[in-house]
């Protein structure tokens, strides 16, 4: 009973922290529809700023509160700058494109934080009042946690008052429901968005500052908090503050009790919870179906086969690629091979995200499955490479089809988060299972003797990956591809002509999964080893970045995106320690310059030039 009470209180304190971060994220998404990947970075900045401020202030509670408020305000200010400088310019871009911009921000903030505050973990010296405890049920319960327990509902109440009792708040709520209508009513949408973003950022900063006494300001905070924040927001329902509070409560309590009952489940507990909630309530606990954008026609640009000049360019590139083994050294060949694998991986995600209209945050799951199947074929079955290369896409495709069957009812961000949950669960399973070698992975997955020469392997990769990407392109211009796009463009209209959108999407998911699995298998033989990291969130984000960078609306997009991203990354990481800063800035610059992605911009430029 005592343990129960302590874990309950601990969970409540954790819920407050979670809620603060999630609240900002859900408010931002609710109004601006921006999927703010940099929210974790704002949390981290809040902690670092709080450290800088609080270590310079006297250690008593009044000063502490002031310092925390100062850090939150400073973070809000950074959020405002971010919105004005970057996000404001890309609201018209396709929905997930802003994700790319915020990803660039994450990279930049990581390196800037390292530059400004150094690599070590920074801890706040705790004065006695921060270390005090309250005796509860035979145990010592931190007084600070009690304060946290109170802060959560206080902030919720304050926000509730703000959103229901002030004019501004009412506008924000209206904008959450239908932002186009609010704009039509003559409200200055820009100012509204800026303030909302600032509020969200401030809440994140507050969360970070409040987390400082119990831990440290460190460089891993941004990534470790962002996944949790997204899960809470999705479980609660995007855009719903009370939902975020409920979800934070649910997840924090489950984790708090979870460590008692299932200590090994720490890797996946919140994802299992999210999947369970979404299965029953596809829009989260208190979420509502998102209002569709009014000018829905605008968001789907015309997709045409490439024009003659672009085809010629592609042909030249293909010829160059074929000629490469004869002129390039082994290192360049290895870079090209990696680019080919990335290209197929990106193309497979594009099938789902572009024509399929299903954004996925967990696409690396199929890549990883393919890699592990290849590894199992090579080491377990002792089968030659072609067998692995055949089995991988087959199994990945079948599993993707099965997964698609379960989730095809969901859409938008909920679908994306569920794919993330699935990938994380798989990742956790691979990390903890002996059959997959656990964290130490499977080694010795080398190509057959005849393909071990880098030039030969490159040729194999070229045939499979470039061939695979071309095949995907062909499928997308087939009647199936048209039907898929029809289902995405206007689902009711598609149904009215006899199409079955869920079935089409399932087929697309299976195709995408198979292609990703093939890429994973090629990658496995290329690297010689497979680790759970092939299914990590980082890999899924890589694929997302490549597709978005190239442009979701063109068929050449994923290819361009993959080549640009891998090329940039490989070059930058070789030449500077600050590669994240540079890469982040480049991505931001590309986002601002090419809101339709690089290939999209090329296509538009070409079309404008033709008229």
């Amino acid at each position: 009973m005592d343990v129960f009470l302590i874990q309950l209180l601990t969970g409540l304190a954790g819920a407050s922290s979670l809620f603060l971060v999630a609240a900002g994220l859900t408010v931002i998404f609710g109004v601006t529809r921006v999927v703010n990947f940099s929210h974790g970075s704002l949390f981290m900045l809040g902690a670092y700023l709080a450290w800088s401020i609080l270590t310079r202030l006297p250690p008593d509670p009044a000063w502490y509160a002031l310092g925390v408020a100062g850090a939150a305000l400073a973070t809000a200010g950074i959020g405002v700058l971010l919105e004005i400088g970057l996000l404001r310019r890309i609201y018209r871009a396709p929905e997930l494109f802003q994700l790319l911009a915020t990803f660039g921000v994450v990279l930049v903030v990581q390196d800037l934080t390292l530059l400004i505050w150094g690599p070590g973990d920074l801890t706040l010296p705790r004065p006695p009042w921060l270390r005090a405890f309250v005796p509860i049920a035979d145990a010592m319960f931190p007084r600070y946690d009690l304060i946290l327990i109170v802060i959560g509902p206080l902030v919720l109440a304050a926000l509730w008052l703000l959103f229901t009792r002030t004019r501004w708040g009412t506008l924000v709520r209206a904008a959450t429901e239908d932002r186009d209508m609010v704009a039509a009513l003559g409200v200055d949408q820009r100012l509204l968005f800026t303030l909302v973003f600032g509020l969200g950022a401030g809440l994140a900063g507050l969360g970070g500052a409040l987390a400082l006494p119990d831990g440290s300001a460190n460089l891993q905070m941004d990534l470790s908090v962002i996944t949790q924040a997204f899960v809470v927001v999705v479980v609660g329902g995007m855009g719903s503050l009370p939902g975020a509070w409920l979800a934070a409560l649910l997840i924090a309590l489950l984790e708090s009790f979870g460590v008692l009952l299932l200590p090994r489940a720490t890797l996946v507990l919140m994802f299992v919870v999210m999947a369970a909630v979404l299965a029953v309530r596809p829009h989260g606990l208190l979420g509502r179906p998102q209002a569709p954008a009014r000018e829905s026609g605008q968001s789907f640009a015309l997709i045409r086969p490439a024009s003659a000049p672009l085809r010629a360019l592609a042909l030249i590139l293909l010829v160059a690629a074929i000629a490469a083994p004869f002129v390039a050294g082994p290192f360049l060949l290895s870079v090209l091979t990696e680019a080919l694998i990335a290209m197929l991986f990106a193309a497979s995600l594009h099938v789902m995200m572009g024509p399929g209209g299903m954004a996925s945050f967990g696409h690396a799951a199929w890549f990883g499955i393919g890699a592990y199947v290849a590894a199992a074929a090579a080491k377990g079955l002792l089968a030659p490479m072609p067998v692995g290369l055949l089995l991988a896409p087959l199994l990945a495709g079948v599993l993707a089809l099965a997964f698609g069957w379960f989730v095809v009812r969901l859409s938008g961000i909920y679908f994306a988060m569920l794919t993330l949950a699935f990938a994380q669960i798989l990742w956790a399973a691979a990390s903890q299972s002996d059959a997959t070698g656990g964290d130490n992975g499977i080694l010795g997955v080398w190509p057959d003797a005849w393909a071990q020469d880098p030039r030969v392997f490159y040729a194999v990769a070229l045939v499979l990956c470039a061939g695979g990407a071309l095949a995907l392109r062909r499928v997308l211009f087939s009647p199936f591809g048209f039907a898929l796009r029809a289902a995405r463009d206007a689902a009711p209209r598609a149904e009215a002509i006899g199409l079955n959108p869920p079935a089409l999407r399932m087929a697309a998911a299976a195709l995408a999964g198979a292609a990703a699995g093939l890429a994973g298998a090629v990658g496995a033989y290329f690297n010689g080893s497979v680790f759970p990291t092939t299914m990590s969130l980082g890999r899924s984000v890589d694929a997302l970045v490549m597709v978005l960078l190239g442009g979701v609306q063109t068929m050449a997009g994923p290819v361009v995106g993959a080549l640009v991203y891998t090329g940039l990354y490989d070059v930058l990481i070789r030449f500077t320690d600050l590669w994240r800063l540079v890469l982040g800035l480049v991505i931001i610059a590309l986002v601002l310059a090419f809101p339709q992605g690089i290939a999209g911009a090329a296509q538009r430029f070409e079309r404008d030039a033709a008229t």
Partner: protein
Amino acid sequence: MPLTRRAILAGAAALGTPALAAAQGAPIRIGEINSYTAIPAFTLPYRNGWQLALEQLNAMGGVLGRKLEVISRDDAGKPQDAVRIAGELLDGERVDLLAGGYLSNVGLAISDYALHRKRLYVAGEPLTDALVWEQGNRTCFRLRPSTYMQAAMLVEDAAKLPAKRWVSVAPNYEYGTSAVKWFKQLLAERRPDVQFVAEQWPALGRIDAGATVAALEAARPEAIFNVTFGPDLTNFVRQGNTRGLFEGRSVVSVLTGEPEYLEPLGEETPPGWLVTGYPVNSVTDPANTAFIQAYKARFNETPKMGSVVGYALIFSIVAGILKAGGTGTEALCDALPGATFATPFGQVTWRAIDHQSTLGTYVGRTALANGQGTMVDWRYVDGASVMPSDAFVRRLRPA
């Protein structure tokens, strides 16, 4: 810099190979890969360490009359990138051998690749036992004391504690599970009366410290075995301090005595923990002192454990080159086993049976001094003294 010169000359004299006063001939190129941007808190001091070693060796004429070069690359903590970069170093930069690594999976990936390419890989930091046991091979050598060794070093003193009810808290991945496995097994051999009544497995980097501490407290342990490190450790210590988890209990903690992990704890450093680490502020022997002084003079800061690893890594490789008289892979792989080299911790040997070095670490207790954490009551434990039997190793290591 007396240590280094003595070591080189001693090594050279032992082989009868004269060391030339000035460096001539093609430089010796070491391709080094590490997760510089992923874990800067460790890798930046580590880089300082190998840079210092490089400068010292080159200042004295290099190795075998050749200048020593390190071509260093960042792998961003991703095994697949590490493999590609290893290829670049071998093919593009034409390095003579590969070195480095921090994360265990990166180390394994490079080791496998090096084996495939039949080139030497000397791993510095990766702790996984598999690197020299289950996945050990001819061309891979590992410097740092492994997870097994760290656990074994602590078990000696842990067995002397009166505690019978233990709990463990370790990050939920291979390093954590291995550390707990070995510690439990080795402790049970000495103390069959010990039982582990609860285990906690926080996700790496995402510990729910309050809940974890409360869960451990609920088990009413007499002693705690901790494997968390970095931000997780900081969170765990702070929550533990406030909730009184450590009062009246013995705590055995891996790696916590290393400056990288001890410093952030600051004035909340829990005293009396039995830890492995590096008492950089209180070692007085000549080898350590020389290194610390040289490091401080060069970099204006106290070295950390990573610095020692980086520094020793170079010397561990050079020992092989000297003994082999060259940089051919086969010659090196034959020469390294049994080779001895000097480190700030003393003389270290490469074991022939599993290519693990006998580099040890310090075991001691944490204490608070001037608002900072330090190690006291420490002693150096030679790696060789905590190795399992040869039969044990042969069972695990592929032939």
